[in-house]
C-alpha cells in the first residue's frame, strides 16, 4: 500500500519533503506547502460547535462547519459551507460552495457550486451554477447576468445582447413516427 503511494508521487516533485502536508481547510485540497502556508491567514473556519445568529460580514474567504442564522455577506470572497455546516440565512458572496445544508436565498457574483450531498432550499442568483449528482436543491435558479451593484444606477443596454443565442434545432426524425393527437 505504501509503495503504491511512492509510485504515484510525481518524479519532478521534491524528494525530501514530508510525506503529506496537513490540509489547511476544507475546500483547498492540493495546495503546495508554501502556497497553503500563505493562504492560512486568509481562510477562516467556523467550527462545528459554533452557533451564530445575526449578520456575518467579512472580507476574506470563510468556511463554515457550524450553524449560522441570519445574513452572511462576503461580497468579494468565497464562502464554503462544509459538510457539517447548517445555514439558515440569506447569503451574498463572490462564490459559494455548498457541502452542507443551506436554507435561504443564495446570491453569488461568480458561482454557486452545490456538491454531492450538499443541500440548498432557496433561490439561487448567480451567473454560474453547478449542481452535482446527489445534491439536493429546491427553489429557483436565475443565471441572468446582473449588472454590478455599483453600476446599477446606469441602466445597461447590453443585457439582451448578453443572452446566449439559443439553438433552434432541426430534429432528426429517424426514430419516431408522428402520432395522431386525438386518435382516441
Amino acid at each position: 500500500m505504501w509503495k503504491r503511494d511512492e509510485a504515484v508521487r510525481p518524479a519532478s516533485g521534491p524528494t525530501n519533503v514530508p510525506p503529506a502536508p496537513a490540509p489547511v481547510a476544507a475546500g483547498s485540497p492540493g495546495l503546495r506547502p508554501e502556497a497553503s502556508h500563505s493562504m492560512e491567514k486568509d481562510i477562516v473556519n467556523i467550527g462545528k460547535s459554533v452557533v451564530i445568529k445575526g449578520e456575518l460580514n467579512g472580507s476574506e474567504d470563510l468556511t463554515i462547519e457550524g450553524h449560522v442564522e441570519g445574513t452572511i455577506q462576503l461580497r468579494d470572497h468565497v464562502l464554503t459551507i462544509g459538510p457539517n455546516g447548517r445555514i439558515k440565512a440569506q447569503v451574498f458572496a463572490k462564490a459559494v460552495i455548498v457541502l452542507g445544508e443551506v436554507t435561504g436565498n443564495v446570491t453569488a457574483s461568480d458561482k454557486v457550486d452545490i456538491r454531492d450531498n450538499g443541500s440548498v432550499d432557496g433561490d439561487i442568483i448567480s451567473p454560474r451554477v453547478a449542481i452535482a449528482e446527489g445534491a439536493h436543491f429546491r427553489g429557483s435558479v436565475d443565471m441572468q447576468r446582473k449588472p454590478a451593484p455599483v453600476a446599477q444606477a446606469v441602466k445597461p443596454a447590453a443585457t439582451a445582447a448578453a443572452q446566449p443565442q439559443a439553438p433552434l434545432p432541426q430534429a432528426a426524425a429517424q426514430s419516431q413516427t408522428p402520432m395522431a393527437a386525438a386518435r382516441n
Partner: protein
Amino acid sequence: MGLLDIIAARRSDLGPPPAPSTVVDESVFATKALAKFLTTLTARRAPVLLDLGPVVGSNVTYFGEQLGCKIFVEDIYADLDRHVRERKVESLPGFLLKRFPQADSSVDGILCWDLIDYLDRESAQALATQLMRVLRPDGALLGFFGTAQPRDMNYTKYVIVDDVALRHRQYSAARGRQAILLNRDIIRLFSGLRVSDSFLLKNNTREILFRKPTTQP
C-alpha cells in the same frame, strides 16, 4: 462515452468500491418534442421554466446558461415518494393543489416529464389544474406518457444530452406507474391546453407538447 465517464471509471478503479447508488440504469433515447419545446422558450426573453423532476445539474446549466431561463425546480416525484412512504397518498391531491407558489400565468414552459403516469387520477387532475394555472398564455408544457405499464418501480431522471437526445437515468421509486392513459384522457386532463405536437417514439413513449391558448380579446 464522454470524458467525464472515462475519468469516473478510472477513479472507481483506484478507490474503494462506491457506495450503493439508487441509480439503476442509464440509456440515451431520441426525443422529438424537446426541440419544439425549446423553440417556444427561445422565442421569449428571459423565459421562466418550471421543472417538475429532480434537479439535474447539467439541465440547469443548459437552460440557465444557454437559454437564459429562470428555472424553478419543484421535485414532485420526491413529494409523491414521501406521501407513499408515509402512507398518506390520499392527501396528495390536496397537497398538490397548494404546492406551487408561482403566480397565475407566470411560467413560460413546464417540464412535466412522465410524472402523470405515476399519479392516481385525482392527483393527476389536481396537478394538471395547477400547471394550467401557472402557465402563461402561449406557454408550453412537455409531458411524456407510457404506452405499456412496466413492472419495475423506477422513476426516470431525464438528462438533456442535446435538443434531440435525452439520457434516461433510472432510480428507485416508492411505487410504480399507476395507469396508462389514453390520448383522450390526457387531453381531458389538460382541458385548458391544446395539443401542439405529439409523437410516438420507438421506445413506446408518447411525447406530447401542449400550448396554452392565448386569451381572446
